[in-house]
């Protein structure tokens, strides 16, 4: 059967030409994507596959729960802090350890710095190349670029014709030296690129500025986490003593000088996301006003656990509110409880794992990770050289998590839809004002409900969230200083550090609003050791294969209906997949034997 309608309402047709992109480049980890296009090159079927086994859960078994953060921090190169934080929160939840207010505020700042950094790096270094053509920037007129800068980002000081001429010359030297390295993934003559040369030059200049700035903000992690690039975390608080009037010689790392340094870095970040990042996204989007593809599941089902509480352990104070929206009904937001076995379940009907009964899902506390690699009968190729997957059988190393049986999209866009729907004033103001700016530039009259569920909406939400994080982290900073000034110097609660003080069995969950979406770690502790550890990371939700019922996940849904300019140059597929910032969480090098960066694309 080549034509089907999924239970979650998407029409699939696998009769047309099959296009295989493997690997999907500029993402974390290993991913493959196959689509079928019709005679007009419109995508009618999509299959997304996580191609790497990730055995983290099993290697933690039997280890000391207080050490788990150090292992999960090494899962991948970009999610270090959000896994470490989820891990210590899971252990604290299991053992009922309450951390001091200072520790909460310091962790919040570290999480928001990570979020800001990750969003900026993702946009300028990985995603912008789906929209921006740096080679085309060589044709730009620096004076016109200066005028464009003053129109779209008037508060950014670097806007003179001379500045843009210098950037253009640097870029020219770089490209002429044959070191296209950073830009060699491109399909630079594809008509899918719509920017003017001036917009390309402006965005390229900001790419360089972002490279320079991103390394400043992460110094906050060095101050609070003791070191970078792998900051320290600690069950019970933060490993960071406070001696506000002391100097470093006194042996306390956190004094007023360090705190002022932190504030200065945060203020730089705030200014950049306000004056550069957000205006860039709006300006670039205005060239793509006719390209509102990629909404997929975001138009119906979105979800987050909620995070960034003003008062720790009080979910009602979450500054990014959680919940679930189903069927596109923004007027009804359902409560989400990650501890409820009826709500969160993982299915493996189409994943390379084995359950006793694969029609049922398992809650992560009862999760199993037993691999079972087998391919369906319609697979073309061999076990080690698959030319075409059979999506009617098992086809991915990613499981299929579902909320009350529904496939859900997670991530900044999901959070922004949830918070817009729930009346978060900061978010409503951001969405409305940025959309007004977009409509003015593009000459359109799009509403949030029209614009947000799209690839561009996903990219916009990430920029808005980065700036929201910059704003919140400055609030946290002021609260921390006030709390310290009031005499509270506690940064850790070590009452239950000794495993002798723990119950013989305990279980907990740790959740974090990670850059790519909600991240959850579930732990079971027995006799002081890890008995079971399961992570459901954001890309597990978004990249999930079909479930037992046949519901497709967010990546797959987002590609349907998108026209491709040239099927052998998957610009549009990469653009939409990148808008999720996929992270297939495994830093390994085994994928490519010859260092080839460009995706292998096969059309048949």
């Amino acid at each position, binding site marked *: 059967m080549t034509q089907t309608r999924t239970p979650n309402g998407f029409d699939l047709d696998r009769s047309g030409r099959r296009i295989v992109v493997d690997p999907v480049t500029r993402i974390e980890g290993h991913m493959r994507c196959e689509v079928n296009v019709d005679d007009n090159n419109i995508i009618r079927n999509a299959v997304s596959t996580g191609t790497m086994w990730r055995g983290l859960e*099993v*290697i933690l078994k039997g280890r000391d729960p207080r050490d788990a953060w150090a292992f999960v921090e090494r899962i991948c190169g970009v999610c270090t802090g959000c896994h470490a934080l989820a891990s210590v929160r899971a252990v604290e939840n299991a053992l009922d350890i309450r951390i001091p207010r200072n520790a909460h505020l310091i962790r919040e700042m570290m999480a928001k710095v990570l979020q800001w950094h990750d969003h900026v790096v993702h946009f300028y270094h990985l995603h912008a190349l789906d929209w921006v053509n740096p080679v085309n920037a060589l044709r730009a007129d620096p004076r016109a670029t200066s005028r464009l800068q003053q129109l779209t980002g008037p508060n950014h000081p670097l806007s003179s014709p001379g500045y843009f001429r210098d950037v253009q010359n640097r870029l020219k030297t770089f490209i002429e030296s044959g070191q296209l390295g950073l830009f060699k993934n491109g399909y630079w003559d594809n008509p899918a690129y719509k920017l003017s040369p001036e917009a390309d030059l402006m965005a390229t200049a900001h790419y360089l500025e972002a490279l320079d700035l991103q390394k400043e903000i992460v110094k906050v992690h060095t101050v609070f986490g003791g070191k970078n690039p792998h900051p320290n975390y600690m069950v019970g608080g933060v490993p960071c003593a406070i001696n506000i009037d002391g100097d470093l010689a006194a042996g306390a790392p956190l004094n007023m000088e360090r705190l002022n340094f932190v504030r200065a870095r945060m203020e730089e970040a705030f200014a950049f996301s306000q004056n550069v990042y957000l205006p860039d996204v709006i300006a670039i989007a205005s060239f793509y006003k006719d390209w509102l593809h990629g909404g997929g599941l975001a138009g119906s089902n979105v979800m987050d656990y909620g995070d960034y509480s003003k008062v720790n352990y009080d979910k009602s104070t979450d500054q990014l509110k959680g919940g679930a929206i189903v069927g596109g009904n923004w007027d009804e937001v359902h409560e989400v409880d990650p501890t409820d076995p009826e709500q969160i379940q993982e299915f493996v009907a189409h994943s390379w794992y084995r359950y006793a009964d694969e029609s049922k899902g398992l809650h992560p506390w009862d999760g199993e990770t037993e691999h079972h690699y087998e391919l369906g009968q319609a697979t073309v190729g*061999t076990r080690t050289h698959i030319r075409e997957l059979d999506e009617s059988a098992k086809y991915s190393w990613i499981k299929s998590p579902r909320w009350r049986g529904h496939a859900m999209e997670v991530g900044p866009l999901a959070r922004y839809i949830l918070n817009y729907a729930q009346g978060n004033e900061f978010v409503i103001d951001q969405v409305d004002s940025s959309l007004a700016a977009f409509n003015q530039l593009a000459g359109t009259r799009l509403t949030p409900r029209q614009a947000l569920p799209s690839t561009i909406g996903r990219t916009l939400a990430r920029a808005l969230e980065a700036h929201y994080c910059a704003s919140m982290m400055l609030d946290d900073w002021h609260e921390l200083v006030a709390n310290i000034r009031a005499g509270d110097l506690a940064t850790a609660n070590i009452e239950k550090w000794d495993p002798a003080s723990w119950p013989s069995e305990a279980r907990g969950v740790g959740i974090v609003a990670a850059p790519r979406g909600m991240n959850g770690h579930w732990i079971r502790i027995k006799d002081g050791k890890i008995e079971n550890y399961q992570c459901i990371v954001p890309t597990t939700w978004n990249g999930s294969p079909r479930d037992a019922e046949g519901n497709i996940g967010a990546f797959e849904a987002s590609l349907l209906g998108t026209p491709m300019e040239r099927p052998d140059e998957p610009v549009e597929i990469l653009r939409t997949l990148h808008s999720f910032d996929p992270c297939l969480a495994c830093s390994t090098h085994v994928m490519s034997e010859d*260092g080839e960066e460009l995706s292998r694309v096969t059309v048949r």
Partner: protein
Amino acid sequence: MPLAMDNNDSQASSILVLGIGNVLWADEGFGVRAVEALHRRFDVPPQVTVLDGGTQGLYLLPYIQACSELLVIDAIDYGLPPATIHVVRDDEVPSFMGAKKMSLHQTGFQEVLAAAQLLGWQPRHLTLIGVQPQVIDDYGGSLRPEVAARIDEVIQLAVEELGAWKVTLRPREAIADQGGLAAPALALDHYEGQRPSSRDACRLGDARFLVQASHAETLTDTDNETDPSPMAERQHHQPSASRSSIQGPTCLDTTGCSREGGSP
């Protein structure tokens, strides 16, 4: 190097000794383990920074930009026999490092170097000490003995290279605490001491990627023997036969996982 630079010989040197790789992936962690051992054995003068870079990609940019001499230690797939050490210098380095993906969204370390150069970084010296890994895709595994045995030699090479850059390392009077670079839980002894057996925690990779790994010769042979036919044909095998041929790759680990596929 494409861009004009401020660095010149009149500037004080600032040396970065950078170990990169993922300690959770067997020999892939070699670079980190080597700098960890270097740090334990030697005092370094103030102008030298020894850094566990993990798989941090662009997070490493500030450290790289700040140095005038860079010594990288890493597991590199040179296509040489396992545990072979190979040193490359200066302009040769990026092409070798491009052959593998480092973490940050598949940013290769080559791209991190390119980004640093685009921002104007031009090192006086750049050296890569690489060791050919034996096994990479063993999640939760540790260095293979043959590869681990190269740490002393690599440290010696590093000391000599730094000597050529006019830096002398003094052996520590007492071996430093293991946890000096990474979190104590990840220090090699602790990591291995608490490691579950591969029977408890099977560490197999996806067959399609196992075959591309550095030990491809073994695997390709195995693969050809067990999987000579197209998929459609193999579906006609008896269930028991197809179980062993389809279900999973042969376990590579010699420490206790001797079956094919599946979990105990």
